[in-house]
């Protein structure tokens, strides 16, 4: 099993690295947000899948990452993407701690609504405090340097589908590995225990609230990294990123892929981005079909695409 997962991961990474030589530039610019969402969802699912807390406001941290990249690049002139990632991530953690302190007292739907309220609070802030945040138009995000290299000879598309793409896939691999270790660590074990039975885990000495706070902060960091990548791909950070329906999309992706599995949300991110993009090209009523897809997944395949895949696999092997 372990080797199977290893082979799968290596194959997936190899495919991602090989994509630019196969796919057209347009599709690579689509893979880029998918990679960004995959990173964000790694964090989101630590909280949702492993800790059992459904946040309907995690777009807030994606937005913090995007605005972090915007402020650092266009207002403070910081070019280094490494620094941008670290500082945006730190800002997201700083924003997450007060929210988490209040929210982790709750579970289930109450947690969902409270996080939604905080997300919208931030959205209002972005919208209303025009002089600081640029209001509805947001803030421009300038092209960063990667390891000090600015790639000045490349135009924006070439930069995005070239060095930036490989950089982000590398980031996904590293952050994926880190998250893999986290969920298999003693800390991860305690998170799962607190999800399964909070009272019982407390009697076994699990500091549920504290651990949830940490999980929340880690997830915020990942979301901010995803947000920073998204913002550079778009070239703009805007308040829509913090709107609650964007949080809903994060949940959508996690469930689409299957949140019970480590790789589910990653599959969900890639599927969602391509599904949405293709639907938008096919019909103006893409929201309807997207909603219908979600209903089918929720009602018939609650374990998501990965669950469907696993079922097929076991059925084939039984034969």
């Amino acid at each position: 099993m372990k080797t199977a997962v290893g082979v799968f991961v290596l194959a997936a990474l190899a495919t991602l690295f090989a994509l630019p030589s196969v796919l057209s530039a347009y599709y690579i610019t689509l893979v880029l947000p998918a990679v960004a969402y995959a990173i964000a969802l790694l964090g989101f699912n630590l909280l949702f899948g492993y800790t059992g807390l459904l946040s309907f406001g995690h777009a807030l941290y994606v937005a913090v990452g995007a605005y972090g990249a915007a402020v650092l690049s266009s207002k403070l002139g910081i070019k280094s993407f490494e620094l941008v990632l670290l500082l945006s991530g730190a800002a997201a953690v700083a924003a997450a701690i007060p929210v988490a302190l209040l929210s982790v007292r709750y579970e289930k739907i109450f947690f969902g609504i409270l996080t939604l309220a905080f997300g919208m609070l931030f959205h209002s802030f972005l919208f209303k405090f025009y002089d600081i945040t640029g209001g509805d138009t947001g803030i421009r995000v300038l092209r960063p340097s990667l390891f000090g290299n600015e790639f000045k000879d490349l135009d924006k598309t070439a930069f995005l589908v070239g060095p930036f793409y490989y950089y982000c896939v590398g980031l996904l691999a590293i952050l994926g590995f880190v998250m893999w270790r986290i969920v298999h660590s003693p800390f991860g074990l305690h998170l799962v225990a607190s999800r399964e039975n909070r009272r019982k885990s407390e009697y076994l000495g699990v500091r549920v609230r504290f651990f949830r706070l940490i999980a929340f902060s880690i997830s915020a960091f990942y979301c901010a990294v995803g947000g920073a990548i998204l913002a550079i791909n778009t070239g703009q950070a805007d308040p829509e990123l913090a709107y609650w329906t964007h949080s809903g999309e994060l949940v959508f992706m996690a469930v689409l892929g299957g949140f019970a599995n480590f790789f589910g949300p990653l599959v969900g991110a890639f599927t969602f981005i391509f599904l949405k993009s293709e639907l938008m090209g096919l019909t103006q009523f893409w929201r309807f079909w997207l909603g219908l897809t979600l209903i089918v997944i929720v009602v018939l395949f609650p374990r998501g695409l990965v669950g469907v895949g696993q079922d097929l696999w076991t059925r084939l092997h039984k034969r």
Partner: protein
Amino acid sequence: MTALFDIVFGGVFHAAVLFLVAAGLQLVFGVQKIVNLACGSFYALGAYFGISAVNWAIAAGVPPVLFLPVLILSGIVLGAIGPFIEALLRTVYDRDEAFQLLLTFALVLMFQDVLRYFWGANPQQLGDIASLYGSIQLGAVKGPAYNLLVILASIVIALGIGAFLQKTNFGRILRATAENREMALALGVNARVMYASVFTLGTILGTVGGALVVPTAAASLDMPVELVVESFAVVVIGGLGSMRGALVGALIVGLMRAAAISWYAELEMLAIYLVVIIVLVFRPAGLFGKAVE
């Protein structure tokens, strides 16, 4: 003095509409324990359909005085979609609430395109129905009579729901189910009928709300997602599942908003979220909610 009246009147009007939507949300949460993100979509549906109903009434030569009943009736007719959506939700009653929330989120997405399919992308408006009802004038105070009617209708509906829950047999069973689902089911409450009825009632509260308000406003595709947020603020402040909470929460949100707009316009929505957070810090279950954790 006049100014203060105008501000309070505006706030109460906003509260009246919010109450209807929040009441639907509370009713469904109380019994089915599902938070319905699509409550805003029902509201928008009510608004769009209300416009069509009135246009039809105009074409059929219905006298203008009857437009208000026509609007209310159109909202009630829309309740017919309730049982179908409930049948869909039934598939996830025993699942994790993430699935329940997502299913209603899917409805939000789908409704947006359903509305667009039938009524187009343009925001829809009713010419000038509201002013047909004239203005009320009390000394220096002047306001549109239609707004007062909406407030009154909302109060009547609130009292009606109260009486229904307290006085009727079905209401008592409903409250018992909200209190203790297993017990009620063990005592032979027909869950299917109960859930379908409650959800339909919740739907109607939303659609009637939308239909009532549309003569003073417009029906737009962004309405659903905007309204959900305000309704959530109302139920969080009031306490999830509590009808009294919906009423008080709606008043707080409506008046807070009116006050913020008048005295510090930049705070409009921020003020509401701040109230939400303050309430949650000091009274985690909301003003009338049962303790949660």
